[in-house]
């Protein structure tokens, strides 16, 4: 697999930095050339904002006590959702809020085994602008995937069946992403958006499989296409180019996240002499002579 996903050229300047910036601990074993999951963090200088013309959220903001802080709330809510996604460390899923709107996230999902093995599916998440009080987010694949729950024309995944009512505090976007991944491993043919796929899966699994393989091939053959959306933060793939990617990958592996403006020569800070499991101060004894 010689693919590298990265940000489109317009944003390549900060590409590596941002990927590093996500700074996930190395927890998952590397089972992929870029085995270390990396989510690009929201670029420092460019938080996404919501789309213009969103009457619903405007109303919401107006309802709030302090309308002028409204933008902060929505953006921070989405940023918080994004933070939760990062913390979840979903295997094989990467998302990136778009440059233009915090309500639109670009994503890609890697399927590593099962019927859809080797599939690399790009998608876009659309978050309703009255989030978190609206419907569940929509997930639309760039290329309609042959799947019972994916609309063969629009490429939209049937998310609603899993989130009939979107409940703030209980439902989070990472769950949607998790669901988007699960559908490729556990196939459900009830009330399909793509009846043909559903029927084939139930009746002629072989044909289903071959159609899936074709679909995966099709998707992968369009991998290097320009992103569907003209957005600086759209996810774009390019063939492995050592000049560009070696260094970026190196940074991803070696990066250690530190506070943004970490004072140099930090004075003593972050001390702890508490023995793990104890709640007594100075229970961890390092110096035998201490009285």
């Amino acid at each position, binding site marked *: 697999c010689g693919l590298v996903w990265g940000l489109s050229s317009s944003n390549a300047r900060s590409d590596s930095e941002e990927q590093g910036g996500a700074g996930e*601990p190395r927890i998952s074993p590397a089972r992929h050339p870029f085995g270390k999951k990396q989510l690009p*963090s929201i*670029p*420092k*200088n*460019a*938080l*996404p*904002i919501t789309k*213009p013309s*969103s*009457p619903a959220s*405007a109303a919401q*903001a107006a309802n709030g*006590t*302090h309308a002028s*802080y*409204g*933008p*902060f*709330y929505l*953006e*921070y*809510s989405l*940023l*918080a*959702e994004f933070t939760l996604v990062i*913390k979840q460390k979903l295997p094989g899923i990467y998302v990136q809020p778009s*440059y*233009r709107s915090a309500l639109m996230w670009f994503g890609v999902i890697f399927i590593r085994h099962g019927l859809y093995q080797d599939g690399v599916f790009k998608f876009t998440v659309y978050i309703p602008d009255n989030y*978190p009080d609206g419907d569940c987010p929509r997930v639309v694949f760039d290329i309609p995937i042959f799947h019972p729950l994916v609309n063969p024309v629009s490429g939209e995944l049937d998310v609603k069946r899993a989130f009939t009512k979107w409940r*703030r*505090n209980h439902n989070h976007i990472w769950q949607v992403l998790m669901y988007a991944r699960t559908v490729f491993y556990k196939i459900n043919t009830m009330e399909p958006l793509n009846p043909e796929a559903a029927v084939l899966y139930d009746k002629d699994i072989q044909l289903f499989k071959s159609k899936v393989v074709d679909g995966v091939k099709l998707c992968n053959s369009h991998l290097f296409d320009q992103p569907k959306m003209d957005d*600086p933060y759209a996810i774009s793939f390019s063939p492995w180019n050592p000049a560009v990617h070696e260094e970026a990958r190196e940074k991803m592996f070696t990066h250690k*996240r530190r*506070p943004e403006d*970490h004072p140099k020569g930090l*004075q*003593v*800070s*972050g*001390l*702890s*002499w*508490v*023995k*793990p*499991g*104890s*709640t*007594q*101060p*100075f229970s*961890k004894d*390092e*110096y*035998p*002579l*201490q*009285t």
Partner: protein
Amino acid sequence: MSWLSRITPRGTDGRTNRSAASASPCTADPETCLMVFENHWRQVSWVLEQRDSVAGGADDLTAVRNHTDQMLCLLAEEKPAGGDSDTPAMGPILELVVSENVLQRLVQWHVRRGLDPDSQTALLKLFEMLIGRSQQPLLQHSAVLQPLLGLLGACADPQLGCPPSLEASLVLLLNQVCVCMSRQPAVLELLFRCGAVQQGPTNLLIFSLLVPFIHRDGGLGQQARDALLLVMATSASNHAVARYITENSYFCPVLATGLSALYSSLPRKIEVHGDDWHALRREDWMGVSSLVVFMNSLEFCNAVVQVAHPLVRCQLLDYLHNGFLVPVVGPALHKSSVDEMIASTAYLDLFLRSVTEKSLVKTFLRFILLHRHDNDTILHTLLTRISSNSRLCMVSLSLFKTLLSFNCEDLMLQLVLRYLLPCTHVMLSQRRAVRETDLYGKSADKFLSLIPECCRTTTAATSDREEEPAFWGKVLGSPNSESPVHAKPSTPSRLALFIRQQSTGVTGPLSSAPGPESAPSSPRNSAPLPPSSPMHQPPDPSEVESGYLEYLRDARRGIELCSWACRDWSAPYDGDNPSPSSVPPPPPPPTSTPSLSMVPEHFSSQRSVLADPAQQRAAAVAAARAEWSSSDRNSGEWDITISKNCISLTPRSKKRSLLPSSVPLQPSSSSSSSSVTEVPLGTAEPTGPLHHAVPHQALYNGTGQANECVDTPDGGMEVKKVKRDADVSGEPGPNGGVGMMGSTESSLALEGGYGDFHVSSAKKPAPSQVKSNLLPQAQTCSPSLQPSSQTLNCRSLPAPKPSDASVAAGGSQALESVESLIEELLEQAPSEPDRSELGDSNGHGISIEAFHQELRELEERVRGRRAHSHSAEELGQDSVPTSPGPHRMDEECPPPESEQGAGEPKSDGSAGTFSPARPPAQPLTQPYIGPFMTVLFSKLESMLQNSLYVNILLTGIVFQLSCYPQPLLRSFLLNTNMVFQPSVKSLIQVLGSVKNRIEAFAAMHEDFPTMLRKARRFLVARGKLDWTDPPVGVPPLRRSDSLVKSRKPSLGDLILRHTSSPTRARHAAQAALAHVRDGGQSLHSALFRGAVAASGASSLEKQAEALRVKNTVYCAVIFSEFLKELAALAQEHAVAMPFPPSQGTEE
């Protein structure tokens, strides 16, 4: 021989010539040099062999000296004869010196004939020259080392030291030896071994000789310390030497106990004249020689800990703990005079900021957290100081700020976390929510909603808006180093949002992410967004202008730094780990000492009810006089929250014992106008740390409370107050006001009971015992107390919903007594002209404030309803305020959760809300959030009365605390949706009550918007000044930074009066601060003018009133900014990413 005269010119000033020689190195070839040397040696040895010629020594001595001078010069100039750089071959002269043992024989000859000081000096200098300048390693040859040690032994004794005249030469020589040793570590071993032969147990002679100079000041001490440090570093891996140092030298004890001696010479009193002073900065102490000496030694300790062998380090830390901290610093912190408390607290703060070695920090922290002085930990003592009067409070807050900046788990555990660990403060059903973050901005919204309405208005500000800097929002942080201020608003990262929105909306996507340079410099400018985007209407400039983006950035930075620092903590403190069920129960609310030290504060801030206008006037006059007349008392002690511009350099009162204010206390109390409760408190308690402070408190209570019950402890007072209360409000009808007042008063009585009680039982160690005794005693103090006390108790039971019934009960009880009280007070009216002398202005400022506030609230409810409303209004106008809230924060008793609806202004429930008292027997069973949170909340609640600087420090500390990512702490402070147990007051509740009071105040003052604007402008101006200061936070101790910032005259050496004459200091300080005054004075006078215009009282009264108004106006500014800060923190916590543990790899 011409070369000879060139190198070794004769003369008495051999040293200068030598240095000239070294500048132009000898060009002679080694063989010639050897020849010359041999020649000299021959002549010298001829003298040396004249064993009997001692008698005729003068000539001999001169000859030997001259020859020796030249020989040693030759030796020093000689280059190694080859070989590698590690083991160079000896040059021919050195070879001769070694083989003939030249130096040894020379020294022995000198010693034999008796060394006079002159020869000693000469020899020491000679050796120093030789060792310092030699081109080849010498000390590894015992033919050099032995005579050196012999000489040292002859000149100085490790025990007795050496004659003063020799000191300089001796230390310089020792320093040179150590420098050599550090280059050739093998020498250490040699020194050590051959010393063992010669000197027995004191075998590291050079070391023993240096130790006496450890604490010397000036260059000599520095040389000695440098030399010792070299020994330490060289011996860091030499166990034998380390053992020698620890077992056979006095190094560690001398170092540690020397600190003690130096500490005792520090000024006991820090004379401060700016009312914002709260911590010793480097400029402050650079001019104080005793402090400089101390800090040098402390720095040396730090360095030793850093480089020395673990054995030495541990011993030193041990001695520091047991020989310095415990016997010296501990008692110093517990000194009874406020001045000394201030000084010792400021010193401790300075020390903590100065030490950099972890293990040394640990020693300090252990001392603070675990050491008990008189049964209380140091930490506890320090905590109680926060509730004290301004200066001590500020210094203590500053110390805690320093402590928090360590991000130390042990400290946070003791301070806060252990009280939260059991999770008893949250409702059982809410425990899961501990980990939740403010995902949807609900908490942030809640915080922002508490910004008082009166602080939002911008209409009034438009007139002179252009004069205001775009960003004044960040002034909040100006004196705080943890939220650095931005002199120029730099573009916050998130600002790009708005810009991008703007440009994409109009011209489509930008080709590249907008850089900061493309961003407007302030949100106000950046606001323009396409009108088509309702969502992104330009934020109301008035609000966003206040730098919310900046706050978000500060919050992010604070959280990041904090969570990075805490990444190696032993547990996440998330409500599960450590498990709430497994943790030991936190200590119960303390009962004895804290109440003693806290009660006075409550008295001071809320209690002193000035019931009678004359008294109020007297008090006001006193306050104003104390504040404004520069000769009355120095503001360093009782910071009166004057503007920083009025730097009154008033070194009058030397000792607190001379309290000018306390003198009239006795008479007045016997003249039936002082409250009985406080007097015993202040005078009878002998050991409380605030003992000295207490008389003051008692004092203004004395002046303030004209309750006449002299003989009956609290009971009488209470009843009367309650009576008056009912009287004012008139009827049991709509009792909100009545209930509130009544309960406040009764709580006073109850607390009086506490105080009284504690006086008598202060020595009882068991809190539970104290508790159990409390109620009965309070009730039985006097018969008259009983009924109302019971009323009080039943009313203040932490009922989730205060019922009207209980209010009514209190109200009706109270009816008659208030009336009579007021009458009594009125009768007393004209009594107190002399009182003007005694007021502590600080206290008055506070109490007047509180009383005013309360009365005003009361007044609103009863207005027009009652015949007596007239008197109420009168009271309302010039008198002052018990703000009831903080009562409940009394450390010893967790507050009842009655202020559920704190955010809502005075619902009926506020009757219960303001009921401060609770059954004393209960607290033990109730969750307790710990003394730190309790005292912080209490201080927050009295924000209106706090000085600007206290509020700045206070909010800074809460900000610091709120940066901690541990869910237990984060949820406690920032999750406004959490439901706490009824007895636990939440931050949002505290803030809600402050909001209400600010709004009420604003409603009273028509010119509030103007004053607010002026206050903001002053803060901006002040902030600009501060921005040019070096950060207050951590004055570095490194020598490289030791250059005092000379840009502006240091306030510090002006501050510490001991260095210069008071007069000079005063002039200097005035000069230094002229610019500040120029900037602010007019502003302040304007502020006061506006505030006082209405009242027709004397000018001093006006000034007192102005002070009170000023505090409130500043509070309103700070409060609004603080809320934005908290909102930003809540939002940033939701998007913060944790840092993984460092896995032991230190970075």
